[in-house]
């Protein structure tokens, strides 16, 4: 690893001030992605600010929803009975993530910030516009089986690999952030950004910003939600395609739906066209399958990942059939 300095932040204000002032400083919490990036020299912070001592862990249930502290370990959220009952898609996504050892250390806030697994990004011998702006994107015409169908640009087609953020899209979650300009709440679907011409920018966070909590509103549809992850191996593997779905039903009619996909886009991707095709429709298997066919709209496949267009449609269909009780 490139040498770095280390300090533990005594409180939140100090952590934010240090990160805002010190160029090259990064926060470390669970460290499960950070250590990999450091080992492979993908990232080279000048200093690590350890935020584990901040009082930002815990699941707080209130009338209008749940507040999950950013430092809550993934394993603890996955074990939480209230989350399991009220937001099953979130627990399912967490249990489909990584391994128990990683889940015991990784944090909710850190998980949102995990970096892509694009092999060119993670290999410092290869050019990569995300890692070194302007150096090129070999994935466009290279080995791109795991790269994105949606949200890409000529500069970058790196897939966002996480599960939690996709599940959070299905329950209208918000990210609570503290920073030099004070606290603010960011809807999860606006938290990550597409690469465009600046793939090195992955979120709307500014220097010094610290994720403090995830806010999950009480909702009519979060209880009836499901996460399906399709991958090359049965477990401990990244998604080829995943779907987070939630349905708000009135008897046998779908009032509204939430449909988001992972493993196929440069950021957690909401499928508005599928949601629109479900709203107001009868809850029937053929309706769900027809709506899922819209998942491929706008996809820009490469030769290596073209198989994922059909796979994504079927994954969305299967998830909808399961949550709709039609499987």
């Amino acid at each position: 690893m490139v040498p770095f300095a280390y300090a533990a932040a005594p409180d939140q204000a100090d952590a934010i001030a240090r990160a805002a002032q010190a160029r090259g400083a990064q926060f470390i919490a669970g460290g499960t992605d950070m250590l990999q990036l450091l080992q492979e020299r993908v990232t080279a912070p000048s200093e690590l600010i350890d935020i584990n001592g901040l009082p930002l862990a815990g699941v707080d249930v209130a009338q209008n929803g749940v507040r999950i502290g950013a430092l809550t370990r993934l394993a603890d959220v996955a074990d939480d009975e209230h989350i399991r009952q009220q937001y099953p898609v979130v627990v399912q996504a967490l249990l489909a993530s990584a391994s128990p050892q990683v889940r015991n250390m990784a944090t909710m806030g850190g998980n949102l910030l995990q970096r892509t697994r694009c092999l060119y990004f993670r290999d410092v011998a290869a050019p990569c516009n995300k890692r070194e702006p302007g150096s090129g994107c070999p994935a466009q015409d290279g080995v791109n089986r795991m790269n994105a169908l949606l949200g890409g640009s000529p500069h970058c087609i790196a897939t966002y690999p996480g599960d939690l953020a996709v599940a959070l899209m299905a329950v209208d979650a918000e990210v609570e952030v503290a920073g030099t300009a004070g606290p603010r709440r960011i809807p999860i679907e606006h938290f990550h950004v597409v690469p465009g011409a600046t793939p090195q920018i992955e979120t709307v966070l500014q220097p010094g910003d610290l994720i403090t909590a995830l806010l999950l509103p009480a909702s009519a549809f979060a209880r009836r939600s499901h996460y399906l992850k399709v991958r090359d191996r049965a477990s401990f593997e990244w998604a080829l395609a995943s779907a987070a779905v939630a349905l708000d039903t009135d008897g046998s009619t779908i009032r509204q739906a939430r449909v988001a996909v992972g493993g196929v886009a440069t950021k957690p991707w909401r499928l508005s066209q599928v949601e629109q095709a479900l709203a107001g429709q009868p809850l029937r298997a053929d309706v769900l399958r027809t709506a899922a066919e819209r998942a491929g709209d706008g996809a820009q496949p490469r030769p290596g990942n073209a198989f994922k267009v059909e796979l994504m449609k079927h994954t969305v269909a299967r998830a909808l059939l399961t949550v709709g009780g039609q499987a």
Partner: protein
Amino acid sequence: MTSTVSERESAIAAPQQDFDTTLIVNGTAHRVRVDARTTLLDALRDRLELTGTKKGCALGQCGACTVLLDGRRVNACLTLAVMQQGKPITTIEGLANGDKLHPLQDAFIEHDGFQCGYCTPGQIMSGLGLIREGRTRSDDEIREHMNGNICRCGAYPNIVAAIKQAAGRRA
């Protein structure tokens, strides 16, 4: 407090690159000087000469480095020694009581749960963590929740059997 966050200087002590740390391993406190970059795994193996914990990948993908941190299983390769000072750490060396093996170690022998033995300390520490987590209610659950430990020799069915036995005996 009248100063805004952007105006105050951080009170964080000047970040360091070298540290005198105290690592508490298997009940014993060890004073050791480490670089900020020293992983917990490297501190255990190279500095404390506790080589039972293995380095298989250094990227958190194989589980050979699994130890218990505050009783919970973690990958020692994915955290820094300086971040874990003062916390109780249990390694494979800490399981047996003299010549008396831990019931999970006994079960691994009874069920032939290893061949080359390289993944085995990690498998046992992970299995212990699993039993404490209570996710041993079926073979499928054991398999799924041991997904962080891989075995090139393919001893998986016997590993599952060993964990099942130890879990049943409330080890």
